[in-house]
């Protein structure tokens, strides 16, 4: 009986794991490529000699995003942006004549799954670089793996601990961030609150289980306090919490001038509604996850909300990307994450183009670190990575955005990230 029970348990767990993996969202091209992978050794041997002069072998890169997890509203457009960038690069001749093959996997916003799909991409598919997600928790688990495997990871994991060692301040050799970090975004929000909105007191409501949220809240609070503001409360919640009414009521009773909300989109919606339901009527400041579809999901009217945003959708490459994304996928709101995926691929492709062997992780890493200069982003600003931190220089622009009464958004302020002083 015990054996039968054990067998049943194993079957149930294995089945759920398999289903989870299949939900992993391996895209069609990836599946095709994966099946081709099993035949690759023989084919590669045959192809190696004739191609000695002009190598046209595809360059395999991975793309790990959350396409079915709690941050999939960001992960899906992010993946589309990366795939679209690869499509355009290939249409224009690839990397020095070699096409890119992109293998997409779903980390489900789960650190453990993230490691599993990383291993699959590196060990089984044989990718030479990876486009990472806008998620700090899974990305932080790849720091040592990427170093060991010599696989550069370029992405939007905004927690600075994904790119630099918090103890030594030194950059992790294979991790590269191509947008302002969450700390920078926190500083910008705090600066806008103090300088433009005239806010004197704030409270925060954030997810302590989410590295992105924690590393945005603390810099925000530090900057706010250091520049004369008062923090009345720092309220928290976790992944398992579904209702933040008590925290919202506490904040509402303190009645700060503004409340900072920071987490992924789903939790932002609940937090906003709980605050408004508790009677809080002041300003609400938010992470870039307050962008659409936030305004269509909340049950209370969206008013007095200000959040950071990476792109101005009305002009430049991002306008085209957003338009094509909406047309191709049927998405009914513009998503800036398509620009994230696009930008990460552009930065990686630029390094690969400069490399003698674009599949050599060490060589590409060195170029990413030292020669990522003025790569035009989807938002038509330049991405230059600082060798010491593997993050963009402090002149990369961001916007402060607010919602109008009709649900449209309006950029109210543009900041260069050098416009603030963190100390």
């Amino acid at each position, binding site marked *: 009986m015990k054996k039968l*029970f054990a067998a*049943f*348990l194993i079957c*149930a767990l294995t*089945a*759920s794991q398999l*289903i*989870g993996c*299949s*939900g992993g969202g391996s895209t069609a091209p990836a599946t095709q490529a994966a099946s081709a992978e099993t035949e690759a050794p023989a084919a590669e041997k045959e192809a190696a000699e004739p191609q000695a002069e002009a190598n046209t072998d595809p360059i395999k890169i991975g793309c790990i995003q959350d*396409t*079915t*997890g*709690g941050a*999939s*509203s960001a992960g*899906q457009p992010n993946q589309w942006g990366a795939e679209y960038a690869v499509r355009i690069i290939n249409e224009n001749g690839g990397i020095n004549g070699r096409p890119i093959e992109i293998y997409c996997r779903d980390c489900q916003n789960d650190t453990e799954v993230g490691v599993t799909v990383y291993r699959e991409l590196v060990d089984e598919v044989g990718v030479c670089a990876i486009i990472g997600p806008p998620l700090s928790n899974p990305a932080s688990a790849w720091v040592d793996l990427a170093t060991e495997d010599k696989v550069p990871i370029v992405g939007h994991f905004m927690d600075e601990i994904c790119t630099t060692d918090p103890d030594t301040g030194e950059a992790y050799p294979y991790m590269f961030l191509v947008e302002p970090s969450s700390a920078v975004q926190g500083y910008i929000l705090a600066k806008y609150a103090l300088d433009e909105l005239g806010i004197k007191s704030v409270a925060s409501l954030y997810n*302590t289980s989410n590295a992105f949220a924690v590393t945005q809240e603390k810099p925000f609070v530090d900057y706010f306090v250091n520049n004369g503001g008062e923090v009345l409360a720092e*309220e*928290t*919640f*976790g992944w*398992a*919490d*579904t*209702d*933040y*009414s*008590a*925290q919202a*009521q*506490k904040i509402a*009773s303190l009645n700060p001038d503004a409340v900072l909300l920071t987490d992924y*989109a*789903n939790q932002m*919606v*609940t937090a906003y*509604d709980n605050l*408004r*339901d*508790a*009677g809080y009527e002041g300003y609400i400041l938010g992470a870039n996850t307050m962008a659409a*579809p936030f305004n*269509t*999901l909340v*049950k*209370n009217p969206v008013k007095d909300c200000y959040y950071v945003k990476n792109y101005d959708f009305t002009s430049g490459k991002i306008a085209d990307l957003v338009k094509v994304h909406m047309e191709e996928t049927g998405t009914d709101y513009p998503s800036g994450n398509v620009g994230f995926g696009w930008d990460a691929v552009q930065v990686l492709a630029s390094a690969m183009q400069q490399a003698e062997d674009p599949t050599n992780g060490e060589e590409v890493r060195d170029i990413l670190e030292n020669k990522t200069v003025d790569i035009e982003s989807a938002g038509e600003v330049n991405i230059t990575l600082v060798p010491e931190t593997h993050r963009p220089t402090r002149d990369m622009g961001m916007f402060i955005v607010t919602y109008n009464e009709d649900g449209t958004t309006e950029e109210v302020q543009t900041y260069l990230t050098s416009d603030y002083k963190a100390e």
Partner: protein
Amino acid sequence: MTLQLLISGFSLGAVYALIAVGFAIVFSIFKFSNIAHGGMISACAFIGYFFQSSFEEPPPFIVTALFTTGVGVLMALLIDTIAYRNIRKKQAPGLYYFLMSITVAILIEQILSVFFGKNLHTYAPIFSSTTFSIGGLRFSSIDTLIMVISLAILSALIFVINKTKIGLAIRTVAISPSTSQLMGINSSVVIMAVFAIAGALAGISGVLLGTKFSVYPSLGPSMMTKGFIVSVIGGLGSLGGAIVAAIALGVVEIFLTYWLGSLSTPIVLFGIMLLFLTVRPEGISGRFAKDKV
């Protein structure tokens, strides 16, 4: 502030009560905690959402709720047929029901995740305002509706179980399915009736919770831990105990979160559960259920 927190606690408790009743009704017969109830709530929330979205002008809430309740009944009977009937036939121990319910719950959640992702979907609002005020106190419109419906459901269930023939049959089967069979009660029909009731509860819960929060695959499963705590403290299988425990849990949770913060609150909540299991394992209701799982 204390009164306002109390109202919030009752509101949260009403949500837990809605889940706990569905939990308790199945436990009262089968003596296992039907974790699959959470998956069914999510599935019903999605079905209700897509039903409502299929109309240009969203139908009245009651239409969506009735439709989803009907679908919930059919789904519960289907799950019973596929997952539990064979186990029942083989008179397998309660542990197998429990394992099967976990399997079904994971299966439903993953199917929903694969087809719809984990993005939020929102029901059309039922009320023009999310809150209303009485005497300076704020009440959540949807929480008030959930509380009214939970109490109405509980009253109806207590009436059915205590005053009707099918209720008598349910109570008899709950004590001993084999003996009740010998007494001429068709226990298969009774079991189907219980699953149908649980399915109906999952249906209405799906619509109400989907309206209160949003619709996503882990909507129901995310509530199951609290539903389980409530059913243990209430007395496994006790409907009245579940409701009392649900309200108590909601109130305690709100006050603890207010005073201690969200990180420390679970420590105290699970401490209370530990205390109950140690001091009064039969829970609030005082009825000790056999074969607890």
